[in-house]
């Protein structure tokens, strides 16, 4: 029943104790705050950096060169854009050095809409991130996966971009992380920093935490159905689940795939489902032009053109400069449940 923020925090604590994590840093990441979303409260190696995103990414690369295992945070992905050339260096330096150097490092950053964040706390980064070869990119949609993907990221020898759907960080998971206490109140008392003075507070990490790993590159089939396929990740994944559950009442059964890893993505899982249903929709909330879903759609057309029953589709954010403050503007900009439901219904019912 942990929240996604608690899951990330516990995985990082496990990483400090067992996986050699040396530095967890970024703006407001260390004490007293422990991250603007509380993901780094109470961690031993967490520290506050200057308000300098380029410095944060540069420091992570340098730490990796020096044999450390850093986890660096960009507070909101809206502010990661001025680091893109450094993100490129983090991976192309392995390539350009002919494999001489590799960079075991994690950059975590909060993404997406859903918190009334207006123009600069609602950006997505998956479309641009997937344009940078060499990064492994993970994007959990629930707390259990958030834990397991972080463990996988901390074990990887390559840069891993860990995208956190900010609207879901406080969501509780129906399932339990291995080693998580049964009582969620108890968990809160153990690992949530108290309000007010925290100087003398220390977390008590659950003793039973394990290195439960969600392998990078493996999607999860969350619902099974023979009529159509929907592939999503992050904030829009639960929308797809809700829509799929609603459509069951209409006699429509969906395969719902949570991609979980954007790079390298689980094409086998997607392909298998498309071969079964012949109908596929890719859903995400980044802007729709040169969107990652477009790549998946292109590949779908390339490989399954003659097997598709109806045209494949992408539902993504509108190609507008930002997500506006008014709820009406936000709803019109990024996919909401009614949009997903409509698209999924149309896809499944369009005559061949």
């Amino acid at each position, binding site marked *: 029943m942990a929240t996604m923020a608690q899951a990330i925090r516990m995985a990082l604590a496990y990483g400090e104790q067992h996986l050699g994590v*040396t*530095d967890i840093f970024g703006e407001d990441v260390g004490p007293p705050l422990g991250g603007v979303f509380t993901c780094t409260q109470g961690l031993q190696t967490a520290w506050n*950096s*200057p308000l*300098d995103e*380029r*410095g944060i*990414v*540069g*420091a*992570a*690369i*340098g*730490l*990796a*060169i*020096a*044999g*450390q295992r*850093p986890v660096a945070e960009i507070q909101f992905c809206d502010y990661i854009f001025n680091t893109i*050339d*450094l993100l490129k*260096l983090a*991976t*192309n*330096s*392995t*390539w*350009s*050095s*002919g*494999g*001489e*150097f*590799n*960079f*075991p490092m994690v950059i975590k950053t909060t993404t997406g809409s859903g918190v009334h964040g207006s123009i600069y706390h609602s950006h997505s980064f998956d479309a641009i991130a997937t344009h940078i*070869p*060499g990064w*492994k990119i993970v994007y959990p949609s629930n707390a259990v996966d958030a834990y397991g993907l972080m463990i996988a990221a901390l074990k990887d*020898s*390559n840069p891993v971009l860990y995208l956190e759907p900010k609207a879901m960080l406080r969501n509780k998971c129906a399932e339990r992380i291995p080693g998580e206490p049964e009582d969620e109140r108890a968990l809160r008392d153990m690992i949530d920093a108290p309000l007010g003075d925290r100087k003398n507070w220390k977390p008590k990490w659950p003793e039973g935490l394990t290195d439960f790993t969600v392998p*990078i*590159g*493996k999607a999860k089939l969350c619902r099974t159905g023979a009529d159509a396929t929907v592939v999503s990740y992050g904030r829009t994944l639960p929308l797809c689940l809700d829509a799929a559950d609603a459509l069951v009442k209409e006699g429509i059964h969906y395969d719902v795939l949570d991609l979980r*890893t954007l*790079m*390298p*993505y*689980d*094409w*086998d899982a997607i392909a298998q489902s498309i071969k079964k249903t012949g109908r596929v929709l890719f859903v995400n909330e980044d802007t729709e032009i040169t969107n990652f879903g477009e*790549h998946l759609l292109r*590949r779908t057309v390339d490989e399954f053109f003659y097997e598709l029953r109806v045209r494949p589709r992408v539902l993504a954010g509108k190609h507008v400069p930002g997500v506006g403050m008014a709820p009406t503007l936000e709803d019109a900009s990024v996919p909401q449940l009614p949009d997903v439901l409509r698209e999924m219904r149309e896809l499944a019912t369009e005559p061949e």
Partner: protein
Amino acid sequence: MDERKNRTTQNGMPDWTPQLQLRIHDLMVTTRTVEEQAIRMVRSGDGWFWIGAPGEEALSAPLGLQVRKGQGLDNDYLHLHYRSSPIVLAMGAQPIDILRQMGAKATDPFSRGRNFVNHFAIRKWNVAPMAPTIETQFSIAIGTGIAQRRHGGTGITIVNGGDGGTHEGDFATCLVWSTRPGNELPILMVTANNKYAISTGSCTQHGTPIVERAKAFGIPSRSIDGNDVYSSWKAIAEGMEYVRSERKPFFIEASVSRLNGHSSSSGANRVEEEDCILRFEEKLLHQELATRKELDRVWEKRREEMAQAYEIVKSEPFPPGEDIYRYIFAEPKDQYYDPGSKSQPGDSNNKGGR
């Protein structure tokens, strides 16, 4: 001759022996001749783009000789720029390897034919992978600095760049991060000021000497004549000593020449600026550490060596096209992308994608 070589000179440094001076001279000539050979490769179509060191030898050969060379935190980390070849040559890199990178050959040990010439990556000597992105090395250097601060000991981080590069935010990043109170970083910053960024005069873009920016952060700094071997050696020795023992940053702004213009894009032709090697040779002759003939012999020998190296490099192959899928990820080498497989590079089931 023997007596002459054992005599120390009057520069106030005990290790400043004739042998050392002649060694520096040889390194400067080695650098210059390998760069000249590289420029010839552009002209003969054996390479495409050249950018390099002529003009920075008096600064960088003394720097390279004073590096604590090796792998890991107890040794120095180097974050260099594309005019740093005297540093790696002084550390022991082979001139032929620079020509291999110039020719983009499969044998290029720094980048396997992928990067521009003079873009080094030498893990066993802590030489961080270099990129043409100006000044990013100043943002990356803070990371090795943080690791070395935590580790203790006397290993330091050295970062080297140009004057135009200091206009990038990365320079300010290095100044800020290396002077956080209680978390100062052991970083030696060396800016080679050749007065230009391609065609733009630096004096048209900033109003105060670069060194003043470091001073504003409380960083001990020196402004030196980087065309003078003695001033360079001394400032670097002093800077290194300070950083090694105090575990705090030190800044050097060295004025240097840019002897072949910016790069091959502007022709790489020799321009009328002070030549630090000729200046150093005058000093050597004046001290009677060598005769003109002996110095000329050094040039001849190195030129011959570069010509021979070029002949070898010329016959070496380019990397095969399917090499592009190698080293995208750090993986055991036998697990790389199999160009014969049907899957695409982005797939999780493809070997290059995991």
